[in-house]
């Protein structure tokens, strides 16, 4: 991957993070393709198959993957329309989880690029920390990784797919009212 492409993608991700931290959500929506899939599966605490803490009875149905699968429960499973409605909800003045608003700071790192499914797409991996403080003393850390597909549309990069994996199983935050 060429250095300038890497720089270009990093700058795209940083700009996106800045829009979110500045609460410019409508501008953020413009960075998403119309067919975006935005998915945050749930994570559960499981023993790996090699664990000696259990003796597996039925290996054929044992699942060690901590992440929920397609078609199972997720924290978010969104398309462009539902993300747009989430933003519209914030505009009502009655979205109490964000009223008063969260103060967020997104840190994006460990950016890696791989060729995408076609010439106009790139697979982009990144880690993130999203620090949130709100009201008087509320503090939350949302830490995880993202698997994105970025697509060049009309000369501009957009997010066409985003899988967000949080590292916590039982979320210590009282809600997920921000974007990643």
């Amino acid at each position, binding site marked *: 991957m060429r250095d300038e492409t890497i720089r270009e993608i990093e700058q795209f991700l940083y700009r996106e993070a800045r829009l979110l931290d500045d609460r410019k959500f409508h501008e953020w929506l413009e960075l998403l393709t119309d067919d975006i899939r935005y998915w*945050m*599966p*749930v994570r*559960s*605490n*499981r*023993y790996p198959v090699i664990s*000696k*803490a*259990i*003796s*597996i*009875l*039925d290996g054929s*149905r*044992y*699942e060690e993957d901590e992440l*929920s*699968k397609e*078609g*199972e*429960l*997720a*924290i*978010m*499973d*969104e398309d462009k329309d*539902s993300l747009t*409605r*989430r933003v*519209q*909800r914030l505009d*009502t*003045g*009655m*979205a*109490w*989880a964000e009223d008063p608003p969260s103060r967020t700071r997104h840190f994006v790192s460990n950016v890696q690029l791989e060729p995408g499914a076609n010439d106009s797409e790139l697979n982009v991996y990144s880690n993130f920390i999203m620090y949130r403080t709100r009201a008087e003393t509320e503090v939350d850390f949302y830490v995880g990784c993202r698997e994105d597909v970025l697509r060049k549309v009309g000369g501009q990069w957009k997010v066409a797919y985003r899988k967000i994996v949080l590292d916590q*199983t*039982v*979320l*210590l*935050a*009282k*809600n*997920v*009212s921000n974007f990643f």
Partner: protein
Amino acid sequence: MLAEVNSLVDADNGLISTRIFAEPEIYQEELEQIFARCWLFLCHETQIPQPGDFMTTYMGEDPVLVARDRSGNINAFLNICRHRGNRLCRAESGNAAAFICAYHGWAYGNDGGLQAVPNLQDAYYSELDTNKWGLIPVAQLDSYKGLIFATFDASAPPLLDYLGDVTWYLDFFFDRREGGVEVVGGMHKWILPANWKMPSENFCGDGYHTAWSHLSATTTGFGGEFRSKPSGEGKVISTGNGHCIVALGAEDQTDPSVPVILAYEAEIKQEVEKRLGDRINLVKPHAGTIFPNFSILRSIARTFRVWQPRGPGHTEIQAGVFVDKAAPPEVKEAFRIQAIRGFGPSGGFEQDDMDNWQGCSESGRGFISKRQRLNIAMGKGHESYDEKLSGWASDYRISENNHRNYYRRWGQMMSAANWSEL
């Protein structure tokens, strides 16, 4: 506790003390008087369908392991090794013939029996009676329409008596079609910084908050159209033993306004009526709480949740999504999507509830705030026993009738020395 309970809850006059949401001493009493005695929801049978399947949960603050043994029977045990008290199984779910403690290696079968103890011959001189050191089982375990409940109190009445007349309402959620429901894979789990009774009372009878608390979600299309066009009918219904149901009018549209869901509901309406009887033409139940901490919802999202107590000021929410087993795949998928977008940590409805419940719980910590009585008097006297609904039902669709009955039961449980006093 009796004298004090009377100063904390005055259900007849619709007054409760903020102290019940904040004080550690009251919380400790709850663990003993309520969570160690009541029937508590563990899981749905479709979450552990095959021999060896297990999941871990809590009864109050006690960790519990629920496992299906080789013969297919479901058992539940304290999830604690009998030797030194270590947490036995640390996974949320899986499939196992045996569980082996990570500390010294004591091994238990999925039927709870102690199967192996390292150094049994030499260090224990074979003097440890392994038959006496199996996992501690719950006192009673039973299920209703796939919902598995257990109690640590051997003297608690049988589950069916405990549930009483709320069973028909449970049928309306979990047994509308042949085969009942199945739970979508995965659970939402997160920490709510509020007392466990706040969400319990909300689901038990708070049809009042939806119009204001959730207006942002309804106006931006997160739920059905029923909030904006209610018939004005509906009731909150207390069927006894603290169990409470919120219902709208029979013709009110409580389902997510997704074409595939509306078409499905129209298609199965007669089948459901045949199965559940005429009462479905009187009310449409859409939320409720089974005392003390198991809540259910079927408008916007088909979801159940257990409000696991974590100290007076915190609750671990464990929530799942259910769908009719007989529904076609595209209908199940539509319900799954609606549930995720409306409820759970990111739900357009539920994320806002957290803030309000937190605020309500925290106020009980202040010295002056603690002296205050809170008001659950709405509609007091405007309720009556309705034979057709098998419960105390409010005259108007919005009422705190259920709050009063929920907290009346809470007071009874907190003060009663045994079940015969209840």
